[in-house]
C-alpha cells in the first residue's frame, strides 16, 4: 500500500505546469446515506496531466466519489480542493454542479445521459455555450454579439466532434447513435466545456473490443494532446493497465491501495479484495466440487462479473466481496 509512484511513461502534458503539482486533492472525505457509509475517509491526490484510474468492486463507492467531486453529492466531512491552472483554489465540497463544470471539471456518466432528442451537434453545442456570455435579451434582439457567440459555439462543437471522430454523425439524434458512439459523444460534450480535469465513469462499459481500442486511443490523446488530466473509473483491467499512470483502489468506501498499475496488481490487499478474490473463490469452489462431487458450483462465480457494475453509490457494501480486512 505504497503511495510512492513510478510514472509509467512521461507524457508531454503537464510539462507546462510543473510535474507533481496537484490539480485535485481530497482529504478525509466521508459520505453517508443514513447509516450507510459510502465513502470513508477517502484521500485522493491527482497530479496535473496524469491519468488516474479508480478501480474497485461493485458498490465500492467509485461513482459516489465522482458525484462528490462534481457537486452532485455533498459529503458530510472532508475537504475537496481543485487548483486550476491560473492559480488559486476552489473548494468543491457542496459546490453547485454547474459551477464545478465551469471551474474546469467535466464528467461523463456511467449510464449514458445524453440529451437524446437533440442531435449530436446540439448536445455538444449546449456544453460549448456554457462558456459564452450572451443573455436572452441580446438573443431576442438578434444583436451582433449573440450571432457571434452562436457562430463560435458552432465552430467549437464541430472542432470537438471531429476530435472524437463523430463529425459525420453530427446531425443524427444522440439517442439513435450506437452505444460506442454515445459514449464518445458524452466525452465530446464534456470536452466542449474546455475542462482541466475529465472524469470518465466507466467509458468502456458496453462497448465492443474495437470501440475499446479506439476509446483507449482517445483517452490517451485527450491526456497528451490536450493536456487534460483524466480521472477514470473502469472495470476493464486491460484498459486501466494500459492508459493509467496511477491506480487507486477503493473497497467499501475506503482506499485500500494506490500506486502504479503494476504495483497495484501485486498488492496483496488488492488481490484479496478484488483481482484475486475471484480466482480464490473459484479455486475454493472447484476444491469443494471435487471433494463433494458435482453440483456445488452455485454461487462460485456469481460475484465475479466485473463488466456489469451498476453501482450508484447507494448500494455500497454489496456483500459478495467478503474480505477479512474490513470486518
Amino acid at each position, binding site marked *: 500500500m505504497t503511495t510512492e509512484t513510478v510514472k509509467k511513461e512521461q507524457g508531454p502534458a503537464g510539462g507546462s505546469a510543473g510535474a507533481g503539482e496537484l490539480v485535485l486533492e481530497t482529504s478525509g472525505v466521508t459520505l453517508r446515506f443514513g447509516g450507510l457509509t459510502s465513502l470513508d475517509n477517502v484521500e485522493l491526490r491527482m497530479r496535473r496531466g496524469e491519468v488516474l484510474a479508480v478501480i474497485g468492486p461493485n458498490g465500492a463507492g467509485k461513482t459516489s466519489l465522482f458525484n462528490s467531486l462534481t457537486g*452532485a453529492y455533498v459529503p458530510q466531512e472532508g475537504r475537496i480542493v481543485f487548483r486550476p491552472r491560473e492559480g488559486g483554489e476552489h473548494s468543491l465540497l457542496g459546490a453547485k454542479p454547474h459551477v464545478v463544470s465551469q471551474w474546469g471539471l467535466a464528467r461523463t456518466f456511467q449510464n449514458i445521459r445524453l440529451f437524446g432528442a437533440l442531435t449530436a451537434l446540439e448536445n455538444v453545442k449546449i456544453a460549448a455555450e456554457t462558456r*459564452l456570455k450572451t443573455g436572452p435579451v441580446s438573443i431576442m434582439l438578434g444583436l451582433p454579439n449573440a450571432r457571434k457567440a452562436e457562430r463560435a459555439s458552432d465552430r467549437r462543437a464541430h472542432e470537438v466532434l471531429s476530435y472524437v471522430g463523430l463529425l459525420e454523425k453530427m446531425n443524427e439524434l444522440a439517442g439513435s447513435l450506437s452505444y460506442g458512439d454515445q459514449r464518445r459523444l458524452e466525452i465530446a460534450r464534456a470536452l466542449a466545456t474546455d475542462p482541466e480535469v475529465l472524469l470518465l465513469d466507466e467509458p468502456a462499459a458496453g462497448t465492443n473490443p474495437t470501440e475499446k481500442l479506439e476509446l483507449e486511443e482517445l483517452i490517451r490523446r485527450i491526456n497528451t494532446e490536450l493536456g487534460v488530466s483524466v480521472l477514470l473509473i473502469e472495470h476493464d483491467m486491460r484498459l486501466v493497465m494500459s492508459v493509467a499512470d496511477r491506480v487507486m483502489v477503493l473497497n467499501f468506501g475506503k482506499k485500500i491501495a494506490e500506486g502504479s498499475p503494476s504495483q497495484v496488481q501485486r498488492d496483496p490487499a488488492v488481490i484479496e479484495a478484488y483481482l484475486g478474490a475471484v480466482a480464490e473463490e473459484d479455486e475454493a469452489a472447484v476444491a469443494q466440487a471435487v471433494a463433494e462431487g458435482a453440483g456445488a458450483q452455485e454461487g462460485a462465480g456469481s460475484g465475479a462479473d466485473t463488466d456489469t457494475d451498476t453501482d450508484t453509490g447507494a448500494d455500497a457494501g454489496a456483500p459478495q466481496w467478503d474480505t477479512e480486512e474490513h470486518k
Partner: protein
Amino acid sequence: MSIKTSAAQGAGQDSPKSATAPLSAAARLRKVHWYQEPRWRRLGALLALAVTLRLMTGEEGTTQDLFLALREDFTGVGLWIWLAIAVAVWAVREFLTDQTSRAVEGTKKVSAGPLDRVRQVWSADKRVRMGVLTAVLALVVFGPLGVERYWQQVLVDQIAIFVLLAIGLNVVIGWAGLLDLGFIAFFAIGAYSAAYWTGALPVQPPVALNNFLVLPIAVLTCLVAGVILGAPTLRLRGDYLAIVTLGFHEIVYLMAKNADGVTEGARGVKVERFSVDLGFFSYEWKLDPMPYYWLLVVFIVLAIFLFLRLEHSKVGRAWTAIREDEVAAAATGVPTVRYKLMAFAIGASTSGVAGVAYASKAGYFNPENFAILLSILVLAYVIFGGMGSIPGVLFGAAFLVWLPEYLREWVDPKDRYMYLGALLVIMMIYRPQGVLPSRRRKRELRMAEAGVGGADATGPAEGRQP
C-alpha cells in the same frame, strides 16, 4: 401457452373451450378470457361512447322530473341509431382492416408525391416562405374585416388574448418543461398593474400613466413576480411545482377578490381604454373591436418573432437540455435554476402584456376574469396544439377558443365545454403530442414510449441527494 396465442390471434372463434384439463396456477393466470380480447374491449368502448353521445345530444334534464333525460334518451330511437353507428364503425375496423389499411396506404402514396414537392419548395426557397408568410399575415390582419361584429369581438376578447397567453405559457411548459398551473395569476397582475397605473384603483399611483406606458411596467412587475415565485420553488419538479403555482394563483386571485380597499374586490375595476396622444397625432381606441385586434396582432407577432429566436439559440437548447435531463445539464455546466427562472419570467411577462391589453380593451374587469379554470384552459390549449411548437400553440389556442363559441349555435350553450372535454380526451389518447407538435417534442415522446429517457423533467432526480 397455446391458449394465450390462439386467443390473442383471435381467429374468429371465442376463446377455446378445450382447456378442460386442470390448469396450473401460472397457466390460469395467463389465460385470456374471451372478453379480454382486444376486439371485444374495443366494441365495449365504442358502445359506451355511443351511449355517452346519446346522453350528450339527447334531452336535457329538469328539476321537476329528474329522470326525464334518462327515460327519454334510453327509450327513443336515437339510442339505437348511435349504437348502430358504433357497431358499424367497429365492424369496419375489425373485419375490413385489410381494405381500410390498403385504402389509407393508397391515399398516402398518391399524396406523398405532391406533398414532398411542396415540402421541398418550402424548405428550398426563402422567397416562397416569405410570400406564404406575408399572405397568411395579410389574411390574419384583413380577413376579420369581413366577419360579423360578434365574431370580431370574440376574436379580440378571447382568441387574440388567449393566443398571446398560450405563446407565453409555451415558453414555460413547452420549452423549459415546467408545469405551471398558475399562469393566469400573471395575467391578473398585468391587468391590475394597468388599473393601478392609470389611476383606476382606490390607491393612487405617483403619476397616472397612459395604458401604453403601463406595458413595460407591467412586464417588469410580472418579471419580478415570476422571479419571486420561481426562486424558492423552481427547485421543485413536475407535480410539486404544479401545486405550488396553483397555490400562487389562488393567493393572487383571493387577494384581488378580498382586498377591497386596494383592488375594489369583487365589484371590479373600470379601466380607461387605449389611447395615444403625441400632440401632432392622437388616436383613441373605442368600441370598434378591430383596432384592438390589430394592436394585439402586433403584440403577438412581436412575441413570436422574439421567442422564435430564443428557441433556436443557446437559451432554447439549454431549456431542452434541462427538460430532458436536468442532472446531465447541470453537470455540463448549464446553470439550471437561472434558465428555469428565465423561462418563468419570460412567460410571466408575456402574460402581463396580455393582462394590460385585456384590461384596456374590456374597460372593466373583476376577479372572476382570472378564475383558476382559465389557467387550466390555457394549459389545455398549449398541449392540444403541440407543446413547444409556435404554430401548434397558435392553432391550439385559436381553435379551442373558437370551438365553444361556434358550438353555441349548434348545441345547448351549457353543454359546450362538454364537447371540448371530449375532444381533449380523444386527442390525448390518439395524438398526445398535439395537433402540430414540435420536432423535438415528438422525438422525446417517441423515445419515452420506447423507454429511453423521459418526456419531461417530471421524473425523479437521479443522482442528486435530496
